[in-house]
């Protein structure tokens, strides 16, 4: 099962060689087999159908949870709630009006999608465990409403609508509701499969593992989280719509234990895999039917099995299979020999220009201007006091100072991660104080982090891809149907090519397919640099880029920065290693205890007695 469907690491839809055709053939085969299975089920006995349909509905629920939990790292216990909304809405409206059930589907999608977006917005305020708890409470509240409101039929619940029959001609296909449910599941699988193969996938993982990195690359992480959450809720709502055709809709079927069970399905089946959630859903729903013993003993066995499964295989069944067969079914590394796609794509033409048009201003124009910056963390002491920093276009401007002088804080203020209590910051003449890091990226400002923020489980090239986020239009829009669009294939190829080229330019060409978790520290830093450089920025803020590099790596870095400067890129570099920094800089600002001591050329700074005393420790 592991190799049959493209769950393994696959370069985003690279359209090169016969490998792509091989994967397409496999997908085609999968779809045919799936349809055959559906046909078989639609003509089976009611008992078998009942079992399969419940498993399929929960499969959709599990996939919807995996979307937010596996890819975004937002563990939600709210799927039960959206499931309930979908089912109850369908049942109540279908009973009270004469509307065809098919019109109710878009209504359900919109309602659950919107409520999902609202809940998702709460994830921006609280994260991790507390977010899970908030969603858990959401489901609790809905269950209680469903039990106590008269319209929902109380504990007994309501009888769901009947699914309309197929027209005479299609009758041999079997039970219509089976086709509906199975096709819905196929759509859900397809949706997730497409997202996994689109450039949106590394972006989602970046939001999960390295949110500051995604933000600095121009991703509006809050919006993406809310959007994906809404999508997942809509999917769960559609599962509710489907479920209403299967019989009675009562509160006990949507309570918090159901939400928990869905999470169990995802974790046991394999989180962040395409088929894992379905495997998990099948296991959990079919277990009582397959293991037909005393009900209590059955539950005990189920509980014991889930404990064993999660303690022995924390990555889930499918995750384990993937790992075992990874060597055998390793996806084609089509990128290595790539000389690039000869077809032009929107991505190519859009990105040859720097991110924003470069006005031909005077060479000594101030491109970054900080005036009177004052900052403290909470009620604490002032970290920055009346700091002025003016960086000229095309310059390399160094920022040095002892530990605790406020250098990193200033860099974070320029990049937008921190908001100063006093003072203003202008980038290219634009007042940026109210702009988030992602918006500043849109102005052509990028940054690197002292401790590299990257997605460890993805290859370096995929991480660099995140840097291209803002440069390819319609990434998010097209993600759900990515593999079906020819334009998308071209964009994938071109993005992959540019990412690999960026990596080669910084000297990490040998590590293009290596997972970030497996590469040495120096290569991680170079990957960071490549992810910034690939977007052709105008300004780069580098936070201690030489950290942990060997002598030769530091020299290599100096050369790279020199090359960037030759292309007209402005750089602000925070560093300790003055031997590396001074030869590069046009200007150096010295900070001490939150105040600017001196701004001047490297020689002026080096010779200044005050600086020598406080910084070089003599």
């Amino acid at each position: 099962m592991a190799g049959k469907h493209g769950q393994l690491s696959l370069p985003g839809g690279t359209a090169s060689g016969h490998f792509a055709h091989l994967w397409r053939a496999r997908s085609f085969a999968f779809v045919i087999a799936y349809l055959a299975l559906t046909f078989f089920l639609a003509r089976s006995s009611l008992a078998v159908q009942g079992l399969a349909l419940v498993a399929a509905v929960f499969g959709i629920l599990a996939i919807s949870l995996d979307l937010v939990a596996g890819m975004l790292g937002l563990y939600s216990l709210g799927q039960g709630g959206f499931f309930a909304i979908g089912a109850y809405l369908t049942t109540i409206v279908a009973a009270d009006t004469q509307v065809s059930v098919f019109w109710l589907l878009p209504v359900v999608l919109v309602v659950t999608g919107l409520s999902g977006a609202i809940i998702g917005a709460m994830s921006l305020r609280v994260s991790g465990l507390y977010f899970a708890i908030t969603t858990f409470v959401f489901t609790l509240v809905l269950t209680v409403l469903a039990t106590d409101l008269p319209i929902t039929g109380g504990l007994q619940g309501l009888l769901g609508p009947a699914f309309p029959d197929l027209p005479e001609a299609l009758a041999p296909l079997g039970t219509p509701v089976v086709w509906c449910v199975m096709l819905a599941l196929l759509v859900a699988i397809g949706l997730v499969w497409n997202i996994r193969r689109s450039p949106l996938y590394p972006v989602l993982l970046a939001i999960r593992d390295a949110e500051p990195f995604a933000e600095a690359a121009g991703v509006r992480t809050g919006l993406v989280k809310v959007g994906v959450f809404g999508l997942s809720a809509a999917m769960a709502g559609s599962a509710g719509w489907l479920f209403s055709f299967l019989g009675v809709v009562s509160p006990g079927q949507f309570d918090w234990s159901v939400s928990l069970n869905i999470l169990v399905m995802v974790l046991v089946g394999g989180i962040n895999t395409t088929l894992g959630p379905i495997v998990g859903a099948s296991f959990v729903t079919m277990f009582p039917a397959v293991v037909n013993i005393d009900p209590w003993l059955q539950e005990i066995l189920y509980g014991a099995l889930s404990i064993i499964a999660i303690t022995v295989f924390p990555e889930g069944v499918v995750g384990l299979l993937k790992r075992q067969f990874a060597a055998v079914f390793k996806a084609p590394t089509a990128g290595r020999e790539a000389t690039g796609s000869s077809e032009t794509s929107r991505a190519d033409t859009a990105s040859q220009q720097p991110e924003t048009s470069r006005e031909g201003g005077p060479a000594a124009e101030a491109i970054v201007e900080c005036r009177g910056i004052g900052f403290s963390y909470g009620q604490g002491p002032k970290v920055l006091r009346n700091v002025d920093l003016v960086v000229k276009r095309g310059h390399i401007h160094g920022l040095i100072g002892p530990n605790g002088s406020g250098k990193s804080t200033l860099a974070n203020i320029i990049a937008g991660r921190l908001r100063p209590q006093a003072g203003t910051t202008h980038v290219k003449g634009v007042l940026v104080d109210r702009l988030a890091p992602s918006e500043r990226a849109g102005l052509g400002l990028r940054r690197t982090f002292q401790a590299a923020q990257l997605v460890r489980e993805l290859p370096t090239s995929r991480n660099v891809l995140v840097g291209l986020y803002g440069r390819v239009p319609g990434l998010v829009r097209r993600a759900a149907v990515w593999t079906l669009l020819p334009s998308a294939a071209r964009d994938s190829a071109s993005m992959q090519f540019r990412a690999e080229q960026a990596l080669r330019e910084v000297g990490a060409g040998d590590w293009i397919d290596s997972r970030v978790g497996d590469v040495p520290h120096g290569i991680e830093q170079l990957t960071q640099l490549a992810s910034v450089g690939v977007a052709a920025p105008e300004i780069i803020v580098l936070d201690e880029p030489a950290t942990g590099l060997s002598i030769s790596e530091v020299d290599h870095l100096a050369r790279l920065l020199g090359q960037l400067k030759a292309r007209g890129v402005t750089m602000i570099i925070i560093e300790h290693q003055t031997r590396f920094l001074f030869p590069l800089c046009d200007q150096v600002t010295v900070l001490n205890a939150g105040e600017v001591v001196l701004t001047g050329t490297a020689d002026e700074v080096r010779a200044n007695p005050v600086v020598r005393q406080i910084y070089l420790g003599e």
Partner: protein
Amino acid sequence: MTSARAPALEISALFAGYARFDVVRDIAFRVDEGEAVALLGPNGAGKTTVLRAIMGLVKHRRGTIRVGEADISALSPYRIARGLAAIAPEGRRLFLDQSVEDNLILGAFHLRHDKDRVRALLESVYGLFPVLREYRRRRSSFLSGGEQQMVAIGRMLMSDPEVMLLDEPSDALSPVAVDSVVKALLELRKQGASLLLVEQRVDVAIRLCDRLYIMTNGEIVDEMSPETVRRGGLGIINKYLG
């Protein structure tokens, strides 16, 4: 008369890091009893990893680590902390919601049944850092950086270890605070303590230590004496540190 006593700390063929990737490779050195040895190097060279590996805090390590007569290569941290080695880690990592004295007493946790010894150790810590006696009941989060560093060193002393590990004791301290820390460590040396020091500040290291090892990129690349450094000027070190 050469004493045949085992060195306070002896490391050979140490590899440590993550499951797939070693951060430090083939590390070998020793600290004799009463000696102070420094590990110098740029950020990311792996110096902190060496200290953490000695304390057992790095899961993936192989090689031999001996403290005195004991082989600690496979011991859990809490066993190592019971009188063999003790660490004053990077960032100090005091238990901030507890008082100075509580932090110190916790340092002597493995000696808790010997109340007299704990009291004596506490007295010696207050003797070394009189200002802590004054602040003994104060919540540690309310101390300055220098004072917190004193508590961290005191907490390390309280376990009466055979070898003491210090990770960048001068980090983020004002020159005055650094000076008092160095003076306290010199006093400790006079009392015969064995120290392994990780530092970025060369001047602190040459004041305190008998020998300096230089680390870059996960390996030890050179060994020097403070005299060599003084004679050759800081320029020698800059060759390695940038």
